């Protein structure tokens, strides 16, 4: 457990419907290595337990604008203060707001275990709805972003059915170098490469709507960057 903003609601729901989990929790937030945003050499390192609020309020180059905007729109300030970027990735919701900005940033995740460390591209880490490549004995300890990527201006657009506290129907992150990623319109958020998305039909929006909305958001993000 890191910020707890996903595990506590899941626990409450399971208890309410008579299906409590018996798994123990390990709180990892006191591990110093999991904190902090630093630039070393040609790479930015973001500790996995960095909160949304820390990202939101950090002084970072323009490439992080999309990520910081996502942080500003995740939940309310309560969730931003406690929820973590690493938790957002490990929870692997199709609507995880952190994923498109990090795809545009070409982020890698760093996993550690007693067997050693390894790095994966973000796109190789999240495998599906609630599925990641993290092995049971591994911790996600950090994200790494190439410093060059972090210089291009970036934007984040989120579409939901109300103003605050809303799960995205669709969202788009884009940068001035033409990289675009779309979230909530496929099982895993992905870079926009012109191939068709495979959006889901759910209570928030139809698949057909998501197709149209994603294309529109992409166009708006690109127009904003061009302006």
């Amino acid at each position, binding site marked *: 457990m890191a910020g*707890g903003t996903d595990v506590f609601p899941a626990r409450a729901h399971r208890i309410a419907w008579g299906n409590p989990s018996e798994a123990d929790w390990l709180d990892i937030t006191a591990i110093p290595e999991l904190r902090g945003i630093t630039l070393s050499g040609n790479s930015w390192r973001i500790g996995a337990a960095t909160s949304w609020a820390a990202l939101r309020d950090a002084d970072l180059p323009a490439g992080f604008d999309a990520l910081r905007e996502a942080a500003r729109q995740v939940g309310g300030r309560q969730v931003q203060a406690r929820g973590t970027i690493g938790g957002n990735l490990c929870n692997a919701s199709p609507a995880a707001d952190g994923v498109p900005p990090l795809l545009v940033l070409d982020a890698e995740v760093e996993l550690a275990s007693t067997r050693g460390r390894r790095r994966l591209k973000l796109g190789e880490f999240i495998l599906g709805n609630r599925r990641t490549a993290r092995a049971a004995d591994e911790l996600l300890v950090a994200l790494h972003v190439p410093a060059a990527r972090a210089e291009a201006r970036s934007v984040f657009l989120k579409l939901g059915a109300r103003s605050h506290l809303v799960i995205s129907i669709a969202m788009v992150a884009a940068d001035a170098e033409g990289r675009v990623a779309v979230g909530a319109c496929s099982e895993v958020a992905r870079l926009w490469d012109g191939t068709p998305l495979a959006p889901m039909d759910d209570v928030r929006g139809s698949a057909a709507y998501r197709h149209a909305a994603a294309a529109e958001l992409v166009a708006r993000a690109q127009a904003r960057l061009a302006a």
Partner: protein
Amino acid sequence: MTALLVNGVPRELALDGGTRLADALRDSLGLTGTKLGCDAGDCGACTVLVDGAQACACLTPLGQCAGAEVETIEGIAATPEGQALMARFHAHGAAQCGICTPGMIVAATELLRRNPTPSEAEVEEALGGVLCRCTGYRRIIDAVRGVEAQAETGTVGARLPRVDGAPKLDGTERYGADLAPADALWLRAIRSPHAHARFTIGDVASFLAAHPGITRVLTAADVPGRNGYGIYPHIKDQPVFAEHTALYRGDAVAAVIGTRAALEALRLEALPITWEKLEALDDPRAALNAPALHAQFPDNVLAEGFVRSGDVETALREAAHVVQGDWQTSFVEHAYIEPEAGYARRIGDRIEVWSSTQAPAMDREEVAGVLGLPMEAVRIIPSACGGGFGGKLDAGIQPMLAVAAWVLDHPVRAIWPRSESMAASTKRHPARITARAGCDAEGRLLALDFEGIYDTGAYASWGPTVAGRVPVHATGPYRVPNVRARARAVHTHQPPSGAFRGFGVPQAAIAQEALWDRLADACGLDRLEFRIRNALVAGDVTATGQKLDHSAGQRLCLEALRPAWAELRAKAAARNARGGVLRHGVGVAGMWYGIGNTGMSNPSDMRLVLGTDGRITFFNGAVDIGQGSSTVLAQIAAEALGLPVAALRHVNGDTATTPDAGKTSASRQTFVSGRAAMEAALDLRQKILRGSNGVLGWDGALTLDGAPFRPSAPIEGLGRFDPPTVPLDANGQGIPYATYGFAAQLCALAVDVKLGTIQLQRIVAAHDVGRAINPTLVEGQIHGGIAQGIGLALMEEYLPGRTENLHDYLIPSFGDVPPIETILIEEREPLGPYGAKGVGEPALVATAPAIFSAIRDATGATIHRIPALPHRVLEALKETGRW
């Protein structure tokens, strides 16, 4: 052991590090000002500050607070900054039911410390993590920003801050979950996960032997009295625990009693229950020709309401213009931020129930019924009510708590988790409406033909009330000489649909106002002027044959919108001329609403007592669910006594001490209980003065002609009012209500034609309330009703098993309610106290139709499937061929 600082006091808690901070605060430290609304970070009611930053105490493990400084409402309320903020909330009426208020004040404190002069947008962003279901947020924004408030002292007509306001602000108010005997066991209902299923309960003894923390499993066989409750005397169809068959997902089939830990660890599969899934009906039209849910209603039609006047077919044939349409609405969840909670205890051969409710006297009847006890043996003590909106009119938690406490002879408490509350409780009826209407060439309405099928779900609840009320209101507040209107409440295997602010009328108003827009267009008339031309005025006769003699301010409401209508339409046209993806539009809708029960008695009794100490106690059985009845009734009583409101001490709701004021529903408390309070106060005054011309006064106790007045025995003033009505006959003819509220609202908005999203810009609401006893509270009702109307129109859709939480089920948040301008029209109602009638439900009815009118004005798109989620709006836009 976790050491932390709570409100500046060092604390050491010997609790597991995974304990939620909320539980540590509430259960171990007794700091119940931190309220729990959703257990999922969706509502923000439990917001506290951890090292100065907002956190949901339901999402924060205690272990992460080691060495931290935690601030709760109790701590903030004790600071000068907290007190200043609370005073502003009080003066603005920014707290209604109060359940979200501690969270709001804590969140606002964080903002104001870093930014003492925030903009509106900064307030919305900083407080955006807290949901409010009552206020519509605008007053909260004003209070946080320090906008000057017009608080006054005085009686009728004064903007008096609410008399019960202080404890809602500082966290000391006690809601259902905030009080229980220390030794109370916990109850957990076992509910069907299936919409329709047969079940059998097997070997309970072995289950209990294997679960040491669990004391007892209760089933239908344990209900000592009648295993059924319900609103109507002849339909007690909702079982405390179902017998053999569950009729909806969420139907209670048993309850387990034990320690809280044992109940939380319970796995449903461990219970000896076997389920056999059966085919479930989820479409009320199909249900009309399907096997009956209840033998009493073989065609699944629980109730039918019908109104006929004139000759609809002939009138439509002869009409210059005829339009028609069909509409479908969704289940709407009340989403009161306080879920159902309370406790029951047995005292010898009596039972006491403490719980959150809108209708203590009705709860008393139901508890007596299921226990097989005389009414005198049952006492209902209402807790503060953290939101109701109709959803806490039905008994729900009370019967099962009472049965458990009675059978075990031990106190038993329960708090329904949010998802259980949503699955189990009643909803607004989804409606399928088809309607036709016609007018002459000059735009005078001639006829309306209305057919509504309302999905009433598995049990009766208030379904008959909805079916009865809808046809009466189907025309809206307009003269329509030829009417045929029918509404049927039809059983399905869905959650029971019951009472929800407006009893089916908001759904019907969507159809009616959409038809008027199209007729106005067909005639080439301005949509507002079309409505003014057809508005009911005093002297007109309604479709039920009722002549409106007084207080029919519909035309005045519509006319009051003319300046804003012209201004906003001009603004929209100018913006549209500039092009772009945003299309601007302005919509308008009218509404009327009968105050009190439909064509049946609904009395209220009130009692005031002057004690031998010269103090006056107001025994008021009307439950204040946040709307402000305690304040309004006190203003009325004080006015009639000729004394200040401060002269009254208040005893509210407790069935052991207050007379039956009837339920808090149907917008009736100001009108019905208000008149009863006025009569009681006049009675007391007369008994004190005994025909003399003396002058009553107040110097901390009663004075007569300036001298202290201390009666040798208590003097009691009694008042009763039952609005005069005439039951409807087979053609819906009669006098269903003694008076009506009227209103017209307009809405300016922009539609994003590429994304289907709606940006509300402004709402202007003109309401004829007879007399505004307390304008701040009236406006508070209007704001809150509009917010719920916005939710109904744009986002709220309860789907069993899919939107059983407050992140998949969306209610308006900060930023979803635009600036609201209220215009109060005061066409005095002679029957009402000082001319007043009701406003609680009228506030909501016109909002959704005004929004749809504006969407059509902006884009030409007509919304038939509600709520108008972005994907539905985009589909409707495509259908126009214009976008």
